[in-house]
């Protein structure tokens, strides 16, 4: 267990470093010169050179990376090319909004996925089971952005139940407001992710229900409800935990399309805008943050795995 986690932690560091190189390299490889974008096509060569010097773009590539990563380690991701604000503060402005949306989406995902997955696994041939299987297929097939637009048109524009564009309302300041502001984008995301999660859960639960130890539990006289709750679900949750961890990582990285559709002020929209403006410092910092979050969640999933499964914990 200990060795396993230390190994994972080392992997985490190595992958993060490699990821930082990739993040940094990708933005470099993008066409378009930020100085030109900033100053417009009519800028003189001298003006361009001045801006490049200010942004540190005249250094060598390696030198730029090293100074960037060196600062990044100390929590300084540089300044936005546009606003001149530190990237870190720009990111931190948006993180609460993204965390809130991710949390809502995850809760919704699980609220849908767990009962649906269990029902599909246990009663695949019942009417309800078949209907839910249809939902799973539809949920996977429908594009999230289209569903988001549909929700806006029906619930916001036609029925006027909910706001069409979502502002960030902190949950602890105004729970009802936060709910109404976040529920639509969260639902649009959750339909897709819950279909994935429920499928995983249904498959692994269906498999677990055929295991010998389930038969043993029944033969002991354990009521069926407890057989599922105490014996089947914990075993079946193992593969599902991986998927949920990956999804949560995706949410925290910013659900770019949905945030754009709902005009939600999260990380995704920040990055979306930054890419359009070729604000490399912001893109690099933002993506690095996303990568780090994703890797960290993966590490947590591994730890959680060990908690759930003694075969990992004790070897």
């Amino acid at each position: 267990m200990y060795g396993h986690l230390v190994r994972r932690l080392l992997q985490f560091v190595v992958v993060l470093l490699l990821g930082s190189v990739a993040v940094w390299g990708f933005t470099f490889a993008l066409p378009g010169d930020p100085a030109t974008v900033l100053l417009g096509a009519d800028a003189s060569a001298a003006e361009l050179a001045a801006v490049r010097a200010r942004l540190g773009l005249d250094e060598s590539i390696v030198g730029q990376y090293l100074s960037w990563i060196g600062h990044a380690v100390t929590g300084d991701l540089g300044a936005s090319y546009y606003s001149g604000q530190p990237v870190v503060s720009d990111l931190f402005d948006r993180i609460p909004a993204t965390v809130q949306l991710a949390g809502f989406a995850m809760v919704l995902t699980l609220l849908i996925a767990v009962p649906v997955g269990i029902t599909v696994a246990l009663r695949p041939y019942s009417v309800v089971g078949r209907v839910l299987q249809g939902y799973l297929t539809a949920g996977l097939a429908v594009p999230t952005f289209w569903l988001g637009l549909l929700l806006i048109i029906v619930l916001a524009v036609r029925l006027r139940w909910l706001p069409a564009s979502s502002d960030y309302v902190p949950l602890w300041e105004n729970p009802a407001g936060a709910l109404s502001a976040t529920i639509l984008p969260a639902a649009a995301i959750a339909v897709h992710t819950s279909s994935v999660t429920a499928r995983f859960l249904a498959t692994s639960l269906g498999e677990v229900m055929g295991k010998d130890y389930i038969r043993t539990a029944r033969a002991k006289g354990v009521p069926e409800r407890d057989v599922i709750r105490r014996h089947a679900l914990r075993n079946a949750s193992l593969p599902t935990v991986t998927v949920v961890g990956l999804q949560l990582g995706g949410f925290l990285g910013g659900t770019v399309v949905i945030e754009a559709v709902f005009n939600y002020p999260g990380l995704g929209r920040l990055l979306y805008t930054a890419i359009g403006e070729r604000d490399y410092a912001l893109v690099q910092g933002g993506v690095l943050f996303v990568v780090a979050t994703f890797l960290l969640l993966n590490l947590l999933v591994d730890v959680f795995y060990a908690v759930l499964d003694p075969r990992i914990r004790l070897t």
Partner: protein
Amino acid sequence: MSGAVNGVTAHRDATSVAPDPGAGPPVLSLRDLVVEFATPAGVVRAVNGMTYDVFGGETLGVVGETGSGKSVSVLAALGLISTPNLRRVTGEVLLGDVDLLTLPTAELRRRLGRDVAMVFQDAISALNPVRRVGDQIAEALRVHDRTLSSTAARARVVELLGLVGVPHPVTRHDQYPHQFSGGMCQRVMIAMAIANRPKVLIADEPTTALDVSVQAQILNLLRVARQETGAGIVLITHDLGVVAETADRVGVTYGGRIVESGDVTRIFTRPRHPYTAALLGALPRLDSASDRLLPIPGQPPDPSELPTGCAFAPRCPISRGRAVCTEARPEPVPDGSGASACHFPDEAASLLTAQADDPPVDQDDPGEPDNDPAPVLDVHDAVARFPVRSGVFARACAWVHAVDGVSLRVPAGRTLGLVGESGCGKTTLARLVLRLVEPTGGRILVDGDDVGKAGRSQLRRIRRRAQMVFQDPYASLNPRLSVGDNVAEPLRLQGLSRGQRRGQVADLFSRVGLRVEHADRLPSEFSGGQRQRVAIARALACAPGLLILDEPVSALDVSVQAQVLNLLADLQRETAMAYLFVSHDLAVIRQVADEVAVMYLGRIVESGSVRRVYDDPRHPYTRALLASVPVPDPVGRADRQRVPLGGDVPSPVNPPSGCRFRTRCPIATDRCAAEEPPLRPVAGGYTACHFAEETVGLAPEVPA
């Protein structure tokens, strides 16, 4: 437990009779149970009128081959079949005077684990991997007694673990199944089953996945469990030896029903159903080598198309095409202590004696080799180690000594039987011969060619001369290729044309007793025995001089196993191939081998001729192993005192110093820990024991 129950048990042990009126009504009765499944091939009637009674304090052995309905019937009876294609379960399952089949699930569950408990095969997977072993036993208690506190449950569980022989029960209580060996898991299962002192204990193949020494421990434990609870035990098994050792009464299943039942001694000495008699004839014996087994021809019936008459008629040696056998299904006719579902029960008994009198089929014993010919296989001091990786950088921190300095020779036309418990390295050794595992040291010569030093093309040539047959014919054939193409694969590699291949495949098929016109079928259309014939045909395709048989009959039923063993014997007589025959089954090895080598923890502890090793074993391990094997002869079983080997095989990662067997050896001394005994000539064979000369003076079985 109650004296009355013990009294009944003792009485029955003494006289071994059938349902004793004094035992009262049966604790569990199956009445005309029918279980059907819907499959794409049509309705499959897996159980077809299963009827039997179990009485308190007795052990009823239900014995039969795969697919005979012996397990499905109890699982269906207890509502434990959850496959969606279960079509119907009819008949009666009387627990006391309640018919379990009429109870709603919740009601039924209230009785499961309390009045009737089960012990399953393969205990490791029958325990929940993510829950503590003690909690799983406690659950059996608490689900039926909601008032039981967790501390009281814990105390009772620790007591139960001690009762079933789990050492350090307090520590073990909080461990997980993967920290237990297979035998220990089965003890846990038994603790769980007897926790509520059930009236009926159903053990479904409880020892099938276990080594013989552990099997003997578990069978003893079941006896203890019966005494402890007074329960009636239903022991479901395919192993006639296990039944003969432990059962009071026996029911023999075939085609989804009991075809014969009766007192255990009577069943084994005077069977009244030809299937029972035929089964006994097909069984390799540990106590007396027979020249040739008498297999039951054909295959077990397909439950999707059971014949209208007697299900056994197509394979029956006494039916002789009589119309009544194929037209009318024989109903069980009670006779004295049991019943036989045969139209001619009296003829069945004569079958057994007739078989015994049969002159052995011409067994031209290849005879003792006049001079020691060059061996086909010569293994010298072979070593195979595997790294155990752990830590942050997955460095090899320890080594599994799978094979640790083994030497053996197999001359042409002879069979070397390699026998040992799981984990002793016998399969690794078999794989070393073809370099399917890279050797760590030693030298292996096939026909004089060094396998370890061979380059790619030479290795390919060697592998053509030495072929392998694997244990599981379901996994060792490519399911996407027709059986003909599977067999032709080695020929294709040799560059034979399509036409030549077809001709040779036809020839190979007829040699192994398969029908040539089936060559285009897929492996899935064949039974296990037929598939193993296909695998043998494939191995023969290159006309090898050496056949390595890795547990080739372990996955097969007794009647089919005998067919395959006879086939192998015939092939060897025709071609003078050398066989390296690996098996855990001592009786099978005795049947097929000329020479035997007994392996323990990567080393050969004893070797020699079959006669020497089986009749005059000098190594305490060989002696204990032979004493652990259940003998399919209930007569005089009370006199056979057996003290099974204690404990499990130690880990090959860190084998004991000196003699590796010393940790389980009843005669070990300090010398055994300090000094590793060499394999040295003793009494015409070889034995690796410091005290090989003295073991012969010991009682046949190790005293308690």
